[in-house]
């Protein structure tokens, strides 16, 4: 028997890891969010029900999916979140939860401690209350986020914090990073990518940093600078989405990844196996190099 943190010998194409945007609901309205445009009752009513999610999840289990990331919106904004989470853990998924943390209570933290996630990742977009809440547009959200971090750390729950770098918080990134370092064994990720809103809106790009601003930011910290230099020094590897990773949106649409939703397979109407093994390989992606695989058709590009 071998103890491992992940499987080493997998087929080139196999549905190992799923990122599942289980809702676009959210209690906050972050200025750069790309899903909040669908955080409206008429869209929420169309989201997958609990039973639909559990049915699809069982199909992922049967197909061999091991890693499951529950994201949103704010996944904990779903009143059935722990029905979904508990089912995922008891099915044997390695579950990661992306959350803003602001809905976390002691009782929630106890439930996470009872059935431990692979990791919880909390978005921490500001070091000060002023900056944090200017981004989240939620009064009291900074204190609630910090409280969630404490609740999870008190219970030794694997935790990572992450920040999206933008015009509103670029002056606080280093302070955030120092705060995370002070917490001990907590991971940190700095994201630089802004995405258009799901309805095509360009709102998030109003907060994008220029190349010069990103360089100036990364130069302030050895780790950030080393990472930035490394990213620029190597050719970007071909996109592997759809090979071992895939995405499901809040309405049950199976897609190559959360950043490429041009083509979808409806999991409400068909099976996951058919979607992953027959439909996804026909979906194109402009970031896929032609030689990435014979098992997916990168030459089919989106209009």
């Amino acid at each position, binding site marked *: 028997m071998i103890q491992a943190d992940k499987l080493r010998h997998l087929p080139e194409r196999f549905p190992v890891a799923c990122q599942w945007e289980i809702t676009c609901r959210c209690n906050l309205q972050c200025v750069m969010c790309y899903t909040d445009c669908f955080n409206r009752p008429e869209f929420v009513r169309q989201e997958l029900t609990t039973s639909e999610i559990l049915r699809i999840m069982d199909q992922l289990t049967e197909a061999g999916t091991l890693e499951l990331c529950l994201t949103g919106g704010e996944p904990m904004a779903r009143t059935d979140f722990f029905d979904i989470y508990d089912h995922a*853990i008891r099915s044997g998924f390695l579950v990661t939860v992306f959350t803003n943390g602001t809905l976390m209570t002691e009782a929630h933290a106890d439930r996470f401690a009872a059935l431990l996630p692979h990791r919880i990742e909390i978005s921490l977009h500001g070091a000060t209350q002023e900056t944090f809440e200017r981004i989240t547009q939620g009064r009291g959200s900074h204190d609630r986020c910090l409280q969630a971090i404490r609740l999870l750390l008190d219970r030794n729950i694997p935790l990572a914090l992450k920040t999206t770098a933008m015009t509103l918080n670029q002056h606080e990134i280093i302070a955030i990073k120092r705060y995370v370092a002070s917490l001990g064994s907590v991971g940190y990720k700095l994201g630089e990518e802004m995405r258009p809103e799901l309805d095509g809106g360009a709102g998030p790009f109003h907060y994008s940093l220029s190349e010069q601003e990103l360089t100036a930011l990364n130069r302030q910290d050895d780790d950030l600078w080393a990472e930035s230099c490394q990213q620029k020094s190597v050719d970007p590897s071909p996109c592997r989405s759809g090979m071992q990773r895939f995405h499901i949106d809040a309405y049950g649409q199976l897609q190559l990844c959360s950043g490429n939703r041009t083509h979808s397979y409806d999991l409400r109407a068909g099976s996951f196996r058919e979607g992953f093994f027959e439909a996804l390989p026909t979906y194109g992606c402009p970031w896929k190099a032609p030689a990435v695989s014979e098992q997916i058709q990168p030459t089919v590009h989106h209009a």
Partner: protein
Amino acid sequence: MTPSTIYSKNPDFVQRDVAGECILVPIRRTLTEANSIYVLNETGAALWNRIDGASPIQKIVSGFAEEYDTTEEQLGRDFEALLADLLLIHAVEEVATAHDPSR
């Protein structure tokens, strides 16, 4: 471990079949095993599947040897090593010792 010992599986370990590999995922983890999964080889998986909380080891080994045309001696050694690993991570526990009519 004796041939008449009976083991049961800990329900806090979920068995998954991922790309033909049998893995055990602990759903209530301690810090020492945080984020670990356990991969069983083919023999290990077959033996794991026979641990049922009712059958003594000897019966499992005998049945397995008949089915797979291998010696009980070799299987006994493999099973002993697997059980030691499984006991270490609390994936199985000893529940009883079967009555041995020869004694």
